[in-house]
């Protein structure tokens, strides 16, 4: 079954340059594809491969590679299988195409990704604030955003050194942070 | 007092003179007709004063009835002669297209109408009736759109004449006389039978054509809608009443029998109901007025079908009221043709006309204290006094018809006064003459309210005199031979 699926996908993507189909698990395939070929791939998947349901779009910040990885999870109700289309785009300028015209639910996912990663999707119906209506800072899920530093800047810490804890610490117990865990 | 004959003769003469005179001098030709009618008016007035309410008979050429031509002059006849002259004068076609012809026809109509009011024998009545037909046919045909309706009118009218003639013939075969007084003497013995009744029915249907009696009135809406409004006013106001007057005379003097009354009642009631119902859905004002006229005339017939003086009283009251109101309404309708919805807001430019219309509508519906109410009250009282389900049925029919009448009339009134309608092309203003004439009618209506008590009394006297067949017989001195013939049979 899975073999058939892979074969089917291979056939489907043979025209798309650089598309690589991998079987992750039963009924779970991964396709790596170039950024400029992704819309074509999704169109094929939706139109000919019966992957009509966009489950989610996820984003990974590969800060070391200076790339965002976008993963489009599409589901087929006919073959009951999930295809994750992986593509990578440069972090800078962080602009990509919207697939709103293929999958309407993409609007929400893209808006969310825009809010969390600062990635801009051209053609998406709305790039307004979505959930973080109060948030003024940088996109919080980017790896170059240091949440802890932000928290330290924004909030004060509570010093909590009651007597009973002191006794425990003196006795060698209590909360201890290993030296390598302490962030500068 | 014999000069009363002149009211028939003079207009007739003038009618023949008018074309000639008009050829010589247009203005004189135009003035001749009104002048003659004025003279008639004056004659009638003097005769009325001289006779002081007493009836008298005139035998034309000195021949005694039943052989000669008899004019019978009582209060009713004088009243109608007077009203004829007055109405013709008031509704004189000052601005017609073919003036001499119209004037001549109008004069003939006046003469014939006067004759109808005065005639004392059936044959003359038939002759004058025919004359009226001819004149009115001519007048109707002067309208631009009225040729087809006029022909229908002619056919129906002719058919009616035939029926009436057959009826008269039947009467003659039964009695050998056509003098009303004589017939009145002979009726109890000769005409209270199926043949007499048949004669009555035929005459009723025949004369009924003019009187807008139920089944023979189908010409009415079309003719009134297309004829010049002054002609419609004359026909609806005057001619129909004269025809009704003839029927009244016959009913009182000759055919005073139950079945005859019954036929009248039925046909009258049908007239009321169909007329008012048809008017309810009428789409233009002239037709609506025509249908309404049918209804009102039906009411007159219902009233006449009440035996005795009450019925005459009520019928006369309704007829006179209608005679005042309907011509005025037709005059007002002159510039309010076309679809009723087009009249929205017409009161804006024409407030007097709209107010007059409202007044007449109120009176027509019978709102106290306007005369229409009292006339209707008389009818209601008369019907209520009668026993028999048919009379009560008629009462119900008339009252329901009144409701329908109120609805459609006041739908129009509200349309007239509708203020915030989209700007439709404003209807033309009425000519001053029409408004003035209608105003005259309105004023007379108001005057009637103020003079209600004396008016009602004099009308009651007229009704008494009219309903008294014996007095009629007493006035007309019959030739001895025929009277003995009547006695012996």
């Amino acid at each position, binding site marked *: 079954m899975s073999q058939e699926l892979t074969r089917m996908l291979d056939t489907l993507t043979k025209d798309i340059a650089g598309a690589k189909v991998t079987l992750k698990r039963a009924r779970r395939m991964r396709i790596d594809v170039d950024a400029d070929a992704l819309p074509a791939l999704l169109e094929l998947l939706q139109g000919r491969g019966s992957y009509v349901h966009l489950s989610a779009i996820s984003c990974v910040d590969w800060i070391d590679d200076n790339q965002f990885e976008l993963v489009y999870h599409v589901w087929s109700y006919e073959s009951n299988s999930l295809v994750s289309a992986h593509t990578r785009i440069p972090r800078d300028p962080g602009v990509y195409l919207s697939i709103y015209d293929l999958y309407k639910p993409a609007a929400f996912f893209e808006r969310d990704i825009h809010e969390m990663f600062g990635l801009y999707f051209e053609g998406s119906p709305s790039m307004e604030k979505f959930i973080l209506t109060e948030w003024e800072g940088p996109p919080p899920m980017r790896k170059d955003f240091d949440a802890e530093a932000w*928290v330290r800047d924004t909030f004060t810490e509570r010093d909590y050194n009651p007597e009973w804890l002191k006794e425990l610490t003196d006795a060698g117990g209590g909360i201890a942070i290993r030296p390598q865990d302490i962030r500068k | 007092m014999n000069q009363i004959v002149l009211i028939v003769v003079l207009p007739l003469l003038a009618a023949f003179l008018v074309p000639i005179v008009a050829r010589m001098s247009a203005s004189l030709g135009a003035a001749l007709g009104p002048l003659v009618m004025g003279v008639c008016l004056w004659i009638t007035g003097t005769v009325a004063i001289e006779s002081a309410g007493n009836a008298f008979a005139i035998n034309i050429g000195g021949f005694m009835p039943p052989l000669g031509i008899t004019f019978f002059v009582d209060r009713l006849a004088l009243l109608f002669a007077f009203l004829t002259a007055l109405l013709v004068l008031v509704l004189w076609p000052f601005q017609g297209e073919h003036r001499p012809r119209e004037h001549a026809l109008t004069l003939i109509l006046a003469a014939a109408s006067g004759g109808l009011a005065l005639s004392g024998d059936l044959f003359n009545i038939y002759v004058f009736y025919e004359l009226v037909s001819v004149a009115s046919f001519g007048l109707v045909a002067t309208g631009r759109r009225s040729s087809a309706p006029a022909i229908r009118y002619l056919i129906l009218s002719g058919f009616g004449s035939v029926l009436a003639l057959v009826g008269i013939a039947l009467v003659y075969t039964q009695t050998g006389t056509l003098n009303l007084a004589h017939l009145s003497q002979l009726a109890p013995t000769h005409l209270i039978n199926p043949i007499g009744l048949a004669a009555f029915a035929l005459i009723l249907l025949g004369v009924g054509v003019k009187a807008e009696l139920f089944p023979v009135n189908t010409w009415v809406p079309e003719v009134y809608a297309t004829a010049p409004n002054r002609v419609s006013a004359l026909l609806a106001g005057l001619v129909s009443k004269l025809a009704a007057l003839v029927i009244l005379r016959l009913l009182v003097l000759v055919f005073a029998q139950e079945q005859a009354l019954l036929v009248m009642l039925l046909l009258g009631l049908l007239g009321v109901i169909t007329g008012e119902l048809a008017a309810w859905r009428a789409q233009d004002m002239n037709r609506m007025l025509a249908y309404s006229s049918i209804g009102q005339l039906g009411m007159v017939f219902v009233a006449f079908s009440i035996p005795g003086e009450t019925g005459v009283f009520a019928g006369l009251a309704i007829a006179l009221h209608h005679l005042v109101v309907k011509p005025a309404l037709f005059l007002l309708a002159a510039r309010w043709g076309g679809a009723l919805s087009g009249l929205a807001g017409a009161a804006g430019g024409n407030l007097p006309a709209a107010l007059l219309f409202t007044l007449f509508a109120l009176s027509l519906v019978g709102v106290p204290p306007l005369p229409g109410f009292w006339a209707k009250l008389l009818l209601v009282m008369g019907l209520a006094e009668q026993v028999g389900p048919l009379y009560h049925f008629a009462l119900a029919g008339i009252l329901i018809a009144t409701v329908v009448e109120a609805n459609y009339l006041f739908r129009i009134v509200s349309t007239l006064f509708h203020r915030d309608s989209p700007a439709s092309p404003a209807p033309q203003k009425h000519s001053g003459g029409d408004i003035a004439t209608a105003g005259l009618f309105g004023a007379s209506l108001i005057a009637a309210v103020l003079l209600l008590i004396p008016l009602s009394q004099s009308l009651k006297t007229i009704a008494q005199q009219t309903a008294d067949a014996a007095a009629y017989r007493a006035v007309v001195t019959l030739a001895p031979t025929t009277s003995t013939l009547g006695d012996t049979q």
Partner: protein
Amino acid sequence: MIKDIPIIAEQAQQPRRTNPLAHVFDELMNFARSRSLFMLHYCTGCGAIELPPAMTSRFDMERLGIQPMVTPRQADILLVTGYVSIKTLKRIILTYEQMGSPKHVIGICSCTVNGGMYWQSYATAKKLDEYLPVDLYIAGCMPRPEAVISGLQKLIDNIKHGKSDNWKDYYQRYDHYLGNQQHLFGNNWQTPTDVIGEAREYGLFGPQTLGQHTELLESVQKPLQPLEMKL
């Protein structure tokens, strides 16, 4: 487990009324207050799940005169049961300000104390008492019903002895709280409740009721005047 948070500012302690009758009356009212606590449990996080057991047959809060209520107008205690995201905090402040004084705030779960397991999240407020005068924290992740009830009893004791007047602190140091709120929510922050007006009405002014933050508030706020009847 349960520790008092000391009142942050020294309060302008109201002088005890000298009239013995008034004293008795005050004591009576304090007692009645302590025995009748209507709570509004603002279910922000996981701690809310521990409240139903505390209310129902096993533990039965009603023994202590504690009843759940649904609107802030009726409530005396605001129970904040779990992490407080910044968005939620706005609603909590709105709700708190709509409650009638004397009112008490109880922070339940560690998250309200110092952020708990969300200590480094950009989305949650860490210390509730920076924004609202918290009377009592019930720490734990999550505290069990016994702990909740024990905490409530502690609060009852405090109220009975007239020691739980933190709500006055909100009026008296409004500028401080407002400053913290503005720090988090931006300069346009405004609640529909006119706290300064209330403080003025009830004579609850303190030295820090007004300050630079309230000035900022007054410069941006939309009108809050009640609708007076006009003839």
